[in-house]
């Protein structure tokens, strides 16, 4: 008995010693960043943890986006999900209708934080909102921009890449025929995102019915009836003429650009960090081109990830989550993240702050993504995409485009097949989620 008392006393003594540390509420955040981006993310979390003494966010790298998604699914099924998880843009519908998440706007407001959700940059806000309410916290938002080798363009007698695909094509053919570089451009690894989806948004082409899926799960793909078909034909022609190269497995498209082998490269603005570090060439960047018969190109759409809050935790933990999300929404945090990584600032206020401080005078190419995203008034075709099983439909589409590149199919045939396969996948998602609306139940 006496021993027991002594033990309990010792325990309390120990608790008293570690008291302040124990009082901190710890929450987990699983993420998909690696390399330089993971370092920056850890710095960001450290900033939050040292900024206050009540909560500790633990950032856990769980591999790439697919691995993080599978990790959180397994954890949720085992009833041990993390509080927060970073999911890529393509997983939006899966997460939204999973019944496993808490809408972030509800959570933040319930916990009494004042975040101005109307201040988020339009394509960012509309992508992550459902019925006008933010369902996930925009974290790393990017958009594709057009990178080019300044020396190659100057040697060929051009100031910079042209604004339209038609003129750009003749520029790239000139560069090739003058022997300035081996290839005009390199096929991006995520060409479906930059050269088909964003292409459709910028050129005001519908991708699917029902406002690209915003108006319901009954949406069907229609890109086999739009300019996407001629875009695929254009890429095929460039490939055949040696104006465009494919990097292929074991080698990244970025390397072909940064080494000076290819003159241009379409890629996310988030590759600023890598290109600044690796490029041996005199590079710059500009807006993505548009079709010559489109007079006022629209905004591009976002890619990247957002933070989802998982269901099934205590209110104490949700206090910590809300505090962290509120921290992320602050203009200072946004500006820091923008500068450290190349991702766009998610709010107008943060963008204005970066501008005010003259950040873009030293880093002009970092402003392109923001300008391109906020260009014009977003309409049904440029607001973003709401397709269920969007990864699966994309892989089917990519396979069909590859069949065009391999010479097995004509562009029209391939896009017809891609749409047909895509629609079957959409119907399966519709069947699974029949009659479902977002649960707005409070956590």
């Amino acid at each position, binding site marked *: 008995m006496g021993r027991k008392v002594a033990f309990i006393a010792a325990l309390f003594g120990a608790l008293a010693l570690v008291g302040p540390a124990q009082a901190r509420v710890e929450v987990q955040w699983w993420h998909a960043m690696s390399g330089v981006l993971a370092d920056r993310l850890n710095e960001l979390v450290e900033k939050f943890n040292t900024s206050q003494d009540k909560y500790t966010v633990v950032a856990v790298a769980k591999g790439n986006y697919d691995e993080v998604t599978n990790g959180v699914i397994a954890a949720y099924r085992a009833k041990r999900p993390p509080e927060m998880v970073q999911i890529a843009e393509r997983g939006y519908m899966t997460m939204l209708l*999973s019944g496993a998440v808490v809408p972030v706007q509800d959570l933040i407001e319930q916990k009494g934080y004042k975040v101005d959700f109307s201040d988020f940059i339009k394509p960012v806000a509309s992508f992550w909102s459902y019925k006008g309410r933010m369902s996930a916290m925009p974290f790393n938002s990017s958009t594709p921009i057009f990178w080019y080798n300044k020396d190659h363009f100057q040697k060929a007698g051009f100031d910079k890449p042209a604004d339209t695909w038609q003129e750009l094509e003749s520029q790239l053919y000139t560069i090739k025929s003058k022997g300035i570089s081996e290839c005009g451009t390199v096929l991006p690894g995520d060409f479906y995102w930059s050269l088909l989806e964003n292409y459709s948004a910028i050129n005001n082409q519908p991708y699917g019915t029902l406002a690209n899926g915003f108006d319901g799960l009954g949406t069907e793909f229609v890109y086999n009836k739009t300019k996407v078909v001629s875009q695929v034909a254009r890429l095929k022609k460039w490939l055949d003429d040696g104006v465009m190269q494919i990097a292929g*497995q*074991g080698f990244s498209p970025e390397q072909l650009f940064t080494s000076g082998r290819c003159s241009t490269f379409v890629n996310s603005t988030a590759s600023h960090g890598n290109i600044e570090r690796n490029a041996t060439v005199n590079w710059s960047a500009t807006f993505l081109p548009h079709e010559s018969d489109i007079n006022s190109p629209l905004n591009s759409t976002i890619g990247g990830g957002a933070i989802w809050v998982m269901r099934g935790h205590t209110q104490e933990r949700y206090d910590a989550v809300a505090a962290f999300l509120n921290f992320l929404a602050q203009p200072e945090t946004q500006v820091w993240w923008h500068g450290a990584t190349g991702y766009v600032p998610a709010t107008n206020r943060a963008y204005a702050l970066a501008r005010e401080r003259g950040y873009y005078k030293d880093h002009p190419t970092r402003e392109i993504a923001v300008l391109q995203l906020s260009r014009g008034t977003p309409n049904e075709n440029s607001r973003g995409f709401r397709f269920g099983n969007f990864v699966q439909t994309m892989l089917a589409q990519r396979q069909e485009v590859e069949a065009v590149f391999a010479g097995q199919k004509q562009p029209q045939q391939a896009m017809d097949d891609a749409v047909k396969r895509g629609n079957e996948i959409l119907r399966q998602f519709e069947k699974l989620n029949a009659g479902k609306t977002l649960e707005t139940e409070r956590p």
Partner: protein
Amino acid sequence: MTLRLSIPWRDTRAPVLQRRHGGHQSKAGTGAAAGGSRTSGKVRRREQEAGLKRANFGDGPGLPTLLLLPQLLILLFFFFIPSLRALMQSVLLSDPFGTNVQFVWFDNFKTLLASSDYRQSITVTFWFTVAQNVLTLGSALVLAFATDRIVRGRSAYRTIILLPYAIAPAIAGILWAFLFNPAVGPLAQVLHWVGIAWDPNLNPTDALILVTLAASWKHVCYDYIFLVVGLLAVPVSLMEAAAVDGAGPIRRFVSIALPMLGPTVFFLTVMNFIYGFFETFAIIDAVTKGGPAGATNILVYKVFVDGFVNLDLGSSAAQSVLLMSFALICTLLQFRYFDRKVNYGV
């Protein structure tokens, strides 16, 4: 895994041996010894007949069960339970989080069999495994034959051939992808130089050739080890007699060694098929990711992509059920039709 399995086997076996040699220390010990002697005569005869070794446990089902337990547990957790789950999942339509599950009978199978994508995957898998099998076994046979002819540096020769087995499949895949990358790969440059428009990123046939080469290269050493050992078992007297009769080395190999290698070759064929079906995943992932245009999208890779990337669990489960059935049918057919022709006499 072999190592882990062998440890409990040894640990439990050791006291048994002691007991047998120690004789009368305990009742159980005598029982075991007595049981052993009662049946040993019959068993030994059967052993000789079958040409196989047979273990003898006198104590009834207790000890054998105990010895089998680790393996049974591993099978339970890594084979039976997952297989059962796959069977269940294959008749469900569910979201990845499992919050919304519908029973759909055989819809997943129907959709699969109706999809051109899946049929393409079957065709690709067929050609891939057959080509891989022929190539692997063929090269391993040539190398094993050559081992006998090499006098100097035989161990160095063998070590070099065995090296690829020590390389992780993903690393091997990246190696091959790089060597044959049309933009930067040195071997691709050689091909271009001799006038072959090699491009596995664009050309489906090139891609299939590339993954077949990579997969075979990785597996040749496995076949090679078995064949070299098999060749050692061929009676020297037979070879010498043939030599005296004037048969050259190739004739001796083809007419004497090869038929006697029958069981080994048969075993390797089965193993190569299983390797091609299941274990080439990492190579595909590193070399082509199943592309271009699905040209290297073999069944096991498709199971992975549909399950872990597309999160279409029902279809992925249905595919693994079908894949398992294919592998089973394939192995049974091999036993049914080839096993009879194999000479187990050696």
